[in-house]
């Protein structure tokens, strides 16, 4: 039976297909124009750097989240994980900084950073193992650890705040507040993580395996893809991203409290989905996620820079914009 020659889509459909890819970017551009019209300070370099620096935490986590969601999983625990990692880092650095390594604050900060990365990867790997070996739904595993991580941090902090010692804060703070070529360090790291993420997703076997598992896990298994290993790796990768985000977060305020990282999981998941990755897995783009994350923080930035809308309605505006952008980039079924 010959194939029907319907494969060439009509011009309008092709245009729609393109719109779907650039939808989030279009939304972001419209928002930026609106922001500039509402307050000319919006378009200043300083404000843009403020927004991008803020986005870095959620953005870096969202890049990792893209892999997990694309493989058909989810991680609800990232905010709590960030809080626990931040608390553990501070405790370790304070202990070392007042003890044996008091004379080498840079080494202390280096060890703190290492701990953040290791803890993140280990927590992520544990999620992966519980999901693949333990055969528990990712939603449930990470809902459980969401509670566990935050409770342990609250317990460590006695419900209050864990604060980094002053001398260490001075050494560590350039990691957040410093800039290279006028661009803050967190923004550089965000760009680097996004580029590496895109490379990993589009140019490696691992990236293709992630997409294959998300599209159809059973078929991927028959195609001799090591599904359990790949899934565990995506979670470990996300954990590592949380570790990176946290090591940038800690020098900002030099403290961890039970409200640290609250609702980051929802922001990260929203960034991924707004950016065009399907929540059911299979297809997605790291670039879209980056745009999604920036878009979310631009909305709240514009709301802060103006007072035309009652503060009580801020969340409603955010919700509205998210739905409109999701509509722009909806995929053709």
């Amino acid at each position, binding site marked *: 039976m010959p194939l029907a020659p319907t494969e060439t889509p009509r011009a309008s459909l092709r245009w729609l297909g393109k719109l779907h890819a650039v939808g989030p970017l279009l939304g972001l551009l419209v928002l930026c124009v609106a922001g500039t019209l509402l307050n000319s300070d919006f378009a200043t370099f*300083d404000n843009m750097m403020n927004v991008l620096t803020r986005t870095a935490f959620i953005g870096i986590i969202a890049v990792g989240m893209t892999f997990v969601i694309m493989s058909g999983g989810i991680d609800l625990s990232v905010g709590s994980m960030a809080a626990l990692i931040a608390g553990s880092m501070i405790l370790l650095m304070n202990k070392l900084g007042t003890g044996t390594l008091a004379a080498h604050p840079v080494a202390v900060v280096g060890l703190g950073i290492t701990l953040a990365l290791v803890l993140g990867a280990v927590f992520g790997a544990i999620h992966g193992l519980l999901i693949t070996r333990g055969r528990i739904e990712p939603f449930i595993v990470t809902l459980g650890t969401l509670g566990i991580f935050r409770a342990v941090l609250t317990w460590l902090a*006695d419900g*209050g705040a864990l604060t980094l010692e002053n001398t260490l804060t001075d050494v560590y703070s350039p990691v957040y507040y410093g800039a290279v070529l006028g661009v803050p360090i967190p923004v550089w790291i965000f760009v680097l993580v996004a580029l590496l993420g895109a490379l990993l997703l589009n140019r490696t076997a691992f990236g293709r395996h992630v997409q294959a598992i998300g599209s159809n896990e059973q078929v991927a298994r028959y195609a001799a893809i090591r599904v359990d290993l790949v899934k565990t790796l995506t979670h470990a990768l996300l954990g590592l991203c949380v570790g990176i985000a946290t090591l940038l977060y800690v020098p900002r305020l030099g*403290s961890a*409290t039970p*409200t640290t990282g609250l609702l980051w999981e929802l922001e990260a998941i929203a960034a991924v989905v707004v950016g065009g990755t399907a929540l059911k897995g299979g297809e997605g783009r790291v670039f879209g996620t980056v745009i999604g994350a920036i878009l979310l923080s631009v909305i709240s*930035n514009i709301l*802060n820079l103006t007072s035309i809308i009652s*503060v009580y309605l*801020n969340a409603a505006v955010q919700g509205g914009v998210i739905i409109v952008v999701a509509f722009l980039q909806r995929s053709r079924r």
Partner: protein
Amino acid sequence: MKRLMCVISASLLALSTLAHAAEKVTLGVSIPTATHSFTAGIVWWANEAKKELEKQHPDLKVIVKTASAAPEQANQLQDLLTVNKINALVVFPFESASLTKPVAQVKAKGVYVTVVDRGLTDTSAQDAYVAGDNTAFGKLPAEYLAKQFNGKGDIVVLRGIPTTLDNERFDAFNGVIKTHPDMKILDAKYGNWNRDDAFKVMQDYLTRFKHIDAVWAADDDMAVGVLKAISQAKRTDIKEVFGGAGAKGAVKTIMDGSNPLIKADVSYSPKFIYDAIKLTAEARLKGEKLPANTIIPSVLITKDNAKQFYFPDSPF
């Protein structure tokens, strides 16, 4: 089976009469779990009260329970009544409206009820009410700032979370500022009583307003975020950052004079739970009643009196 029931109920009866004969007070304390530093302070002070009072009064038993949401607190009140057989209760309600009925039921069983901080919607469900002074919490900073700036200046405000408590504070602040025609509130946005959100809101205020004289951060945690944002932007026009509540970090800063922006604070200490427990326990041990309303005053904290508000062991 029937006989067994008889024996149990008889012994229970004997126990309860025994307890009654010795004039014992079993005091239940129901408070929110420590989710941020203020509630952590509440939990810490409640346990301090338990430790101290049980040592002083052998006839007193204090049971502290924490709840993470209103329905959980309602269940807990039932447990305190049926399992722990309390005859006095100090409760810090999660929400006013949804806990009014559960507290009323406890009172209907003859338990003496002291309500702390958040008033119930029906005051007949309580015997006594102990609270901090939210009006002064907003009024004192406004008066202080008006005095510092001679009734002239531009102020930005951070609010907490949309609640009646936050409205009360903001309205009191606004009321005082309005009496000074040369003082202006540039804007008031929510920082959710947390450091990170306050940091972001303050960054955007700094982008938006080229000249700011003072910040009413309305909370010591939010003041931490505000200070970081100011030092990052290297702005020198801001002369005062006024927090609120008297967290130990802020009080220490005022005591040591270590930050020129932080010169004063207003007290709203979680210690009122300690006061409420102590007042209730001691009154009930003597069989007395508390006054219907006890307001723990909010006081302006400056370098002169900071020492008496500094509790280094408390998490708050």
